């Protein structure tokens, strides 16, 4: 009996092996390239967002709001990073591609930005900026929220209500709130509680202290870990600015311009701030120095 076997010529065998190899290589490289391209796009968009925040910063205004729309569903992860200088603002983006969120490790870092957000997601984002001052202007704080999420301010003081109305930001409301909106109460209990007299915000069981409205909004729109980190970064900026003004005071004294402000005290108080609970100490020192500056022979700021 003759045994049957499959007769494949060498040409066929070669074609199958080479073909499979080429196909595997092509698929592998394409998937790798798509991944790399997506990572590059996420990093580029992250940097672009940071760059586009430049014009949001304030000149004379007390606050301003703008909307940013992205072409695809995006999750903007913002993170604060501390170091021995100014710390850093990290922006890490994740975008929806073929129904799945991309996962990128690339973090875009900005030293001169302070963004407060709860990692919003969606296509449209509201960006609202307000200056932070401790006697002198320190920087502009940026609050980023998703247009899909509504924040309802209940029983807010008159000036806060007026500011929200003036901003005309559609997801910040004081009346006719949606059922799913995040409630911010200035009296009573709800999602976020603001004690405007004792100057703290209670959110997810954490107390975040503030000294002015700009930090109050910061506490409302961010989580406590990020808030405390950003406060420390802000204090590093205050310390450096205090040193700059101290140097300026010495420099202009050469032309007979005297100010006699204890800016080194402000620098040391700001640098030694452990948490937002001690913010009042820095704020009081800053107020004291600011009063002296207002009546000084030569104003430093």
């Amino acid at each position: 009996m003759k045994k049957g076997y499959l007769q494949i010529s060498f040409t066929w065998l070669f074609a199958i092996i080479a073909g499979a190899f080429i196909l595997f290589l092509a698929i592998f490289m394409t998937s790798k390239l798509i991944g790399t391209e997506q990572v590059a796009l996420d990093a580029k968009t992250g940097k672009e967002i940071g760059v586009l925040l430049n014009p949001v910063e304030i000149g004379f205004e007390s606050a301003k709001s703008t909307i940013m729309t992205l072409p695809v569903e995006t999750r903007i992860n913002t993170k604060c990073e501390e170091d021995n200088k100014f710390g850093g603002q990290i922006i890490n983006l994740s975008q929806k591609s073929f129904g799945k969120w991309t996962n990128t490790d690339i973090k875009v870092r900005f030293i001169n930005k302070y963004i407060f957000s709860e990692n919003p997601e969606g296509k449209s984002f509201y960006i609202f900026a307000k200056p932070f001052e401790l006697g002198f202007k320190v920087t502009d704080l940026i609050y980023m929220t998703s247009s899909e999420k509504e924040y309802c301010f209940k029983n807010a003081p008159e000036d806060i209500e007026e500011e929200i109305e003036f901003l005309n930001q559609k997801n910040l409301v004081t009346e006719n709130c949606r059922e799913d909106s995040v409630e911010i109460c200035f009296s009573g209990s709800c999602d976020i509680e603001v004690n405007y007299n004792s100057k703290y915000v209670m959110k997810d069981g954490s107390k975040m202290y503030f000294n002015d409205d700009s930090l109050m909004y910061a506490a409302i729109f961010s989580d406590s870990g990020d808030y405390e980190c950003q406060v420390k970064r802000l204090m590093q900026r205050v310390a450096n600015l205090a040193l700059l003004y101290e140097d300026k005071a010495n420099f202009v004294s050469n032309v007979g311009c005297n100010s006699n402000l204890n800016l080194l005290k402000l620098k040391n108080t700001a640098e030694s701030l452990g948490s937002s609970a001690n913010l009042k100490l820095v704020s009081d020192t800053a107020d004291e120095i600011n009063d002296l500056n207002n009546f000084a022979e030569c104003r430093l700021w």
Partner: protein
Amino acid sequence: MINKRAQLKIQQMVFMLLAVTLFFVLVGMLVLTLKFSGLKESATELEEKNAMLLVTRIANSPEFSCGKSFGNLKTNCIDADKVMMLKTNIDEYDNFWGRETNIEIMKIYPEGDVICTLGNYPDCHIINLQSKEIHIEHSNFVSLCRKDLINGEVYDKCELAKILVSYKDWQEVQE
């Protein structure tokens, strides 16, 4: 004879596979080179955009702005005395306004090219924060104010100036 032909065919197959692999590696390298040159272009574009937007706002940032030192709150007003102090502490502000971003303030009138130092200030024309040459830049007009002493009296002196922000060109960077 059959054995020898089979060996020859195997050799042919090995060479072909090597050639095909090499071809794909070369194509891959070409694609990657093109991709990375595109990335550098994008990075430079972003740095340029940053410089362009920064120049319109930087005069109002606390490290530069006049605040109320020269009377009322002024927009696009730079405090020259403060900037000179910033220049002496510039190491603290490394990459603060962007990667390798350099800032220069140039008096428009009276014109000149004397670089400001603590020794010759205020009789100079250019405050270069990082003391590095500016290549590619964006600029904006500002007023440059300082305190001056004339006949024993302190007064505010403001001059017309231009602020220049230079940015890093990633395409010039070699691998």
